[in-house]
């Protein structure tokens, strides 16, 4: 009896040792689309299906990039020209869902996420293929746009007929289109029967399912140094978006001007170096990351916005390096020590619950 048992045990041990051969593999491809690198990782997918899916995503991303580009000629460019005329016109259907969804998110953010301030973004030099250089625009020029308070509520939409009475309104979906595109990519993958995937558009990502027997592992970049600040595991369906002052900026006479413009002041938002938002939908996470960056480092300011927008978690890095976290995220995140044998001297504060 014992003899048989021990033989069976031996066989089990041997079987376990040899079982590691047939691992399902990740299908991984990089796309140079949407003005960035889009990294698509699929788990346990046949290569033919993986290839088919990625080709389809590449086409979709190209289409969306052209349709929604804020300063290249294309459908959105045309819409902006027509908006400036003040007349009513027929909206290209590809733009409609973007306007509807971003209006809703803009309202929920109390106007801190505001895609109608394209004129301000352009005035600061961030709506250009060239890196922004400065100098910062004059107070008068900023005032001129700010006084007319362009916002999504100035848009009159009736079916596909659109009009605005605000001549300062210009659409720029920079803080939103990427998230929206990632959501559409996930829809496409699900349609193709792919349930385990990460779509990472230049760092802003949505993950569904798992990486086989473990969750997906995501590293969050350090806003000030090279390398990774923290890691977090993601499974099921979740998006993680980070907005940082290091993405696009210029330095002018000792001051850093970043690309996230506060629609209330007309100047780049101050006080934070990065905002990471966790939410189910990528477009919500994208818009919320911008809105919270604008809201600033004070919990009294950002927490109500985070609540109103319905995000599931927030991590803020103040520009002095202090970290603020919502309680749910504290339990999930692991801060990576800067080097071996070195204490992490991160100052971490847990905010009130969302």
């Amino acid at each position, binding site marked *: 009896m014992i003899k048989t048992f021990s033989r069976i045990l031996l066989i089990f041990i041997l079987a376990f040792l040899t079982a*590691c051969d047939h691992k399902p593999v990740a299908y991984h491809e990089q796309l140079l689309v949407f003005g960035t690198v889009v990294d698509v990782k699929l788990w346990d997918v046949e290569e033919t299906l993986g290839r088919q899916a990625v080709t389809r995503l590449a086409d979709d991303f190209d289409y969306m990039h052209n349709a929604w580009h804020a300063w290249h000629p294309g459908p959105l460019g045309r819409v902006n020209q027509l908006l400036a005329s003040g007349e009513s016109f027929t909206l290209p259907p590809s733009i409609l869902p973007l306007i509807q969804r971003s209006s809703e998110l803009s309202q929920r953010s109390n106007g801190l996420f505001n895609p109608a301030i394209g004129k301000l973004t352009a005035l600061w030099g961030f709506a250009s293929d*060239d890196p922004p250089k400065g100098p910062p625009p004059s107070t008068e020029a900023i005032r001129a746009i700010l006084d007319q308070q362009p916002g999504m509520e100035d848009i009159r939409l009736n079916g596909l007929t659109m009009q605005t009475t605000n001549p300062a309104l210009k659409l720029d979906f920079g803080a939103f289109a990427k998230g929206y595109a990632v959501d559409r990519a996930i829809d496409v993958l699900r349609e193709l029967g792919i349930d385990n995937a*990460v779509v990472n558009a230049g760092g802003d990502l949505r993950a569904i399912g798992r990486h086989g027997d473990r969750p997906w592992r995501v590293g969050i*970049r350090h806003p000030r140094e090279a390398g990774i600040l923290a890691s977090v595991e993601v499974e099921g369906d979740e998006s993680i978006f980070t907005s940082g002052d290091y993405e696009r900026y210029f330095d002018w006479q000792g001051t850093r001007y970043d690309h996230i413009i506060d629609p209330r002041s007309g100047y780049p938002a101050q006080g934070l170096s990065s905002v990471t938002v966790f939410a189910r939908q990528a477009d919500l996470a994208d818009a919320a990351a911008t809105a919270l960056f604008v809201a600033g480092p004070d919990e009294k300011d950002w927490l109500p916005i985070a609540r109103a927008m319905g995000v599931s978690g927030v991590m803020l890095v103040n520009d002095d390096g202090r970290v603020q976290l919502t309680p749910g995220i504290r339990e999930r995140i692991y801060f990576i020590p800067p080097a071996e044998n070195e204490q992490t001297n991160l100052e971490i504060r847990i905010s009130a619950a969302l």
Partner: protein
Amino acid sequence: MNGVKLSRGDAVVWLLTATLLMSLYMMFWQADGHGAEAVVLVNGKRWARLDLFQNQDLDVPGPLGHSHIQVRDGQVRFVNSPCPNQLCVHTGWLSQGGEVAICLPNRVSLQILGSDPRFDAINF
């Protein structure tokens, strides 16, 4: 230490140990390595796979012209590229797994292969 004899049982244990060690190295060291390989993509298609410990210089043709890529002692970088902003050149040397340099205008990208097993994606 004379007369050390391995019994049959000992031999089985040692055999299992050897198998275990081999599979451990395979499981934990296989995919990650030390960032020993990089891949060059042109227009999203694989153009070359580089051994980072074989020093070489490559001219990668893109739509704007040739991007010059250099491999030296486990590192790789863009030396020059026909793009206006030179972001790819300013990225500098890459050596860690998962690191990327891209010349978007010339559609050339450079990435160190999957050697960072810690992360499936980097949020930046």
